[in-house]
């Protein structure tokens, strides 16, 4: 995507995700850009947000960027090092879980924010096999707010998932609660083109914000299902301060920003 803006697509995506994180939030983080968004929020808009990993480390110092959620870098100077069962219980438990915001990625997303990280093609004999759920299904089941990072392409924004790994609003309306799930799942989708949210009644994805230089039409062209764009407004682009902190404090070697 050509870009006349003073920021890269990765930079605006990171800032848009970081703005979703509020002070006091417990941020369930993966690695890569999701980790960077969590660090950006902590340095820009949510100094008292707490970074937390499914492997059991909480509020790690992160002197160096971890490359995996089991990277020894997350074990240093944490508030506590525990284990998987404790970490997931912290999210399943609504007393702490209600403060958790998660950042997830996926190979496919549908109009209800359900995610596929398992396979393309038939599950029993897939064309492409991915890593699988990891903690994704658990997080999407428990956590009230989830940010999904996606590249905005038709083949990724699909009518029907090849495999439903992590629950969003399932089939919309009250189907999520009816299935036994707590309210939650993916609440915002951050892509290289804009920001999508979900209608609180129908559970359907709608366009909330489009980036400078991007039109709602372009976003629809890259989306494999119909989507309401009537509520869409232009996103406030990353400020100079946001970009400065992101570039100079969070990823000076551009390990993730590229």
């Amino acid at each position: 995507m050509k870009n006349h803006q003073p920021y890269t697509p990765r930079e605006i995506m990171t800032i848009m995700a970081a703005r979703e994180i509020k002070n006091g939030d417990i941020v369930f983080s993966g690695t890569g850009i999701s980790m960077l968004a969590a660090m950006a929020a902590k340095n820009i808009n949510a100094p008292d947000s707490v970074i937390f990993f499914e492997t059991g480390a909480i509020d790690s110092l992160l002197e160096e960027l971890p490359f995996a959620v089991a990277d020894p870098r997350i074990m240093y100077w944490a508030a506590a090092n525990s284990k998987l069962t404790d970490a997931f219980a912290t999210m399943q438990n609504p007393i702490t879980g209600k403060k958790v915001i998660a950042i997830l990625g996926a190979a496919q997303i549908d109009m209800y924010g359900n995610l596929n990280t398992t396979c393309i093609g038939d599950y029993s004999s897939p064309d492409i096999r991915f890593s699988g759920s990891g903690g994704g299904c658990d997080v999407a089941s428990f956590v009230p707010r989830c940010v999904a990072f996606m590249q905005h392409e038709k083949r990724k924004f699909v009518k029907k998932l090849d495999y439903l790994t992590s629950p969003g609003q399932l089939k919309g309306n009250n189907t999520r609660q009816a299935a036994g799930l707590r309210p939650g799942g993916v609440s915002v989708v951050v892509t290289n083109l804009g920001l999508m949210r979900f209608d609180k009644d129908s559970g359907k994805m709608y366009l909330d914000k489009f980036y400078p230089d991007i039109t709602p039409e372009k976003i629809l062209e890259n989306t494999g299902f119909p989507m309401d764009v009537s509520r869409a407004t232009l996103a406030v682009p990353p400020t100079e301060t946001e970009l400065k902190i992101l570039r100079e404090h969070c990823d000076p070697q551009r390990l993730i920003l590229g």
Partner: protein
Amino acid sequence: MTNHLNKVMPLKQAIEQYVKNSSHISIGGFTLNRNPMAAVYEIIRQDIKDLHLYAHSNGTGLDELIGAGCISKLEIAYAGNGKAAPTCIRFARAVQNNEILVEDYSNYMMSLRFMAGSMGLPFLPTLSGFGTDILTKWGFSKSIRKSDPKIVDEKLAVMDNPFGDWAGASKVLLVPAINPDITIIHVQKADAMGTCSIQGLTFADIEQVKASKNVIVTCEELVDKEELRQNPDLNQIPFIHVSAVCHAPLGAYPSAVFGHYDYDSQYLRKFAIAAKNPDEFKKYQDKYIYGVKNHESFLKIVGQERIDAIKADPRTGYSVNMKRD
């Protein structure tokens, strides 16, 4: 300590004694951390086949075992291995080519399944996974399940909350217990009786150990009982759960051991590149696994330079400013 409480033996002997063709097995660690690699490579060298592997997220060990054709059935939550392999390469190929049967769970579900096994329970409940294909799509058919008494008849079960809406839950999802024939973990410190002290995150190692009929512990340091008894709060695994103790310095290499050494991102990338090409992968295995007689000789080929590069900084527990790619 009387003799029958001394469980120290060579790794080769422990694998011969406890890991058989068709064993149901689990290994400790998580992606690129604390995988029992010395044991994994020994299993490959002993050409043990048809293993049923229970994994939450054992990246490094998992992909070597699958690459060597040791695994026929796999129950798993996540098969990725950090930057080098967002999806484990030999795993993906094996699934795509129908070389292994795989059944998917989530990380919490797999952890709870080990926990249920460690508690002597048939299952544990969770609020995870309703409405997903994890619940509806099974990797093992009813007939396979019936034919193997070691595989539970139902992948998962859903029940209504018998306590009304207590805790705000209308339903719970029940995950069946796992009790492996053998679990192998790698820890920082163990004594000859098998008491273990793990430094840093324990992942699901403790639950895997306590759920397992037999347990092999490989350790960086084989220490005196007295050293571990000085701080019982740091010993997550008492000896009563352990069958064999094997001293294996750098026994998790190329995965990391907090406080001792980092993961070797160069080695993991080399593995990932080779794994994509059958000829290259055979060369890789011939050189690093089949071409050596044990982990010590493997480490000689790896070379002191890499081992120095990953040495942990005593302050942080990892290798500070190590070149990672």
